[in-house]
């Protein structure tokens, strides 16, 4: 049964890499997106401009181009990391733009009275955003946030074409070694991807139930 053991080891390696890459990319992308959203609603025109350009540029670029840039252009510029880190950078920058728009829509949904009341209490812009607006905004946009997280998981498959031994790259390796069971391997890998995305959706449902409030 050593062949089955080898296949299981390879699948586990791919699964683990996909999960880690998705989690760290999602986390950095969310942080980047929140900062960008804050920049876009800030009273400083320069910050608003930078945020708008970031979103317009990155959201309209195919993710593969970003992967090309980080994996091949950055080394030419002297930046030397592992291909995993390059994929992490590309995914985080790409989905940072999507998270920015999601968070910004959440911010817009918070009643204007909240910001005015905060101003009346003497809170400055950053304090208002961090303590009053964002907590309410995020509760409103849980479904789109989870949507974007699931997109991060799916796009991590592109990293397989750029030097990362994640689940999709492992699939290619296995279909070559076990060429008589190509469809079975693809089916198993589809199940493994669902094993990542379905728990995220269930978690989203649980968070939504806990944080919902009457409007």
């Amino acid at each position, binding site marked *: 049964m050593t062949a089955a053991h080898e296949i299981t080891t390879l699948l586990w390696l791919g699964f683990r890499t996909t999960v880690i890459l998705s989690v760290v990319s999602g986390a950095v992308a969310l942080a980047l997106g929140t900062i960008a959203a804050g920049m876009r609603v800030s009273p400083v025109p320069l910050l608003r401009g930078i945020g708008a350009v970031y979103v317009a540029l990155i959201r309209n670029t195919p993710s593969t181009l970003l992967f090309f840039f980080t994996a*091949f252009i950055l080394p030419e510029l002297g930046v030397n990391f592992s291909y995993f880190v390059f994929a992490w950078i590309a995914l985080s920058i790409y989905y940072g733009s999507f998270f920015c728009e999601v968070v910004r829509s959440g911010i817009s949904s918070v009643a204007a009275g909240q910001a005015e009341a905060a101003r009346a209490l003497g809170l400055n812009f950053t304090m208002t955003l961090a303590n009053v607006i964002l907590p309410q905004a995020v509760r409103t946009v849980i479904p789109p946030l989870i949507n974007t997280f699931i997109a991060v998981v799916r796009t991590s498959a592109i990293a397989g074409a750029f030097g990362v031994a994640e689940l999709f790259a492992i699939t*290619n390796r296995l279909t*070559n070694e076990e*060429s*008589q069971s190509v469809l079975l391997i693809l089916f198993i890998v589809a199940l493994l991807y669902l094993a990542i995305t379905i728990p995220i959706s269930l978690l989203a449902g649980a968070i939504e139930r806990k944080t919902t409030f009457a409007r």
Partner: protein
Amino acid sequence: MNMRTTTHRVTMALLTAAFVGIAVRGESSDASALDTKPSFAAGTTMAKLVSAGKIRVGVKFDQPGLSQKNLSGKLEGFDIEIVKLITVGLGLKESDIEWVETSSGNREPFLQQGKVDMIVASYGVNDKRKQVVSFAGPYVTNGQDVLVKKGDPTGLKDVEGLAGQKTCVMNGSEGQAAVVQFSPKADMVGFDVISKCLSALKGGSVVGVVTNTHILAGVVAKYPADFELLNKPFALGTWGIGIKHGDTAFCQFIDDQLTKAANDGAYQTAWVDTVGKGGLLFRPLPPLDPCV
């Protein structure tokens, strides 16, 4: 009114004569074409292909020296020449060949689902694959080799020297399986196409690219100033022509075509014109496997 009717009648008569003349000439040329078309036993794949007048062949579109689309959209390379050697025996012209882009992962499904009639796409023969497809040939023996930057700046001697060093392979290729077997300590980096491996090698991110000797010869032929081969082949194997499982008649026909090409020098011409330019020394057609 009288003039118009007469002119009309004369025109129609002339046109009819012209059409009849063309039809007669066309029929006689069809008759001579039918004479040169080969005939096969009814029900065989060859008979079906001859009556269909075309063949669908699965090849890769991105392997330099083997089967690559050039800038004008035409496929060229060693695998392509092998296909032409075979289809000429069916009386088919180059324009009758429908080229279907194939990647390593979909060769077996394409044959199983009948999407192509045969596959010539750097297809390594092994027992696992023989369970689901049949192989005619083999048409070449080769192995894996290591491609390094011109001048071998890292002083790599052989594949074992890749231990602990970044080595580029293509996901799902024989090269990947060979590195796992022959140099397990190598730090494998997988990409989906060879062009990315070449960029990484040029940029210095990886030390060597491991894939098939014929593919690498095609690369060196294209970029002689940038890359060189270590010329220490390992993991020797053969490439065959993939056909539907159990089609022994078709297998026998293809083997006969290959033998004919080996005898009349067409096989050597195909080699020399493609991978020979990359410095790969000519090897004659290997002994053909029995058709099962």
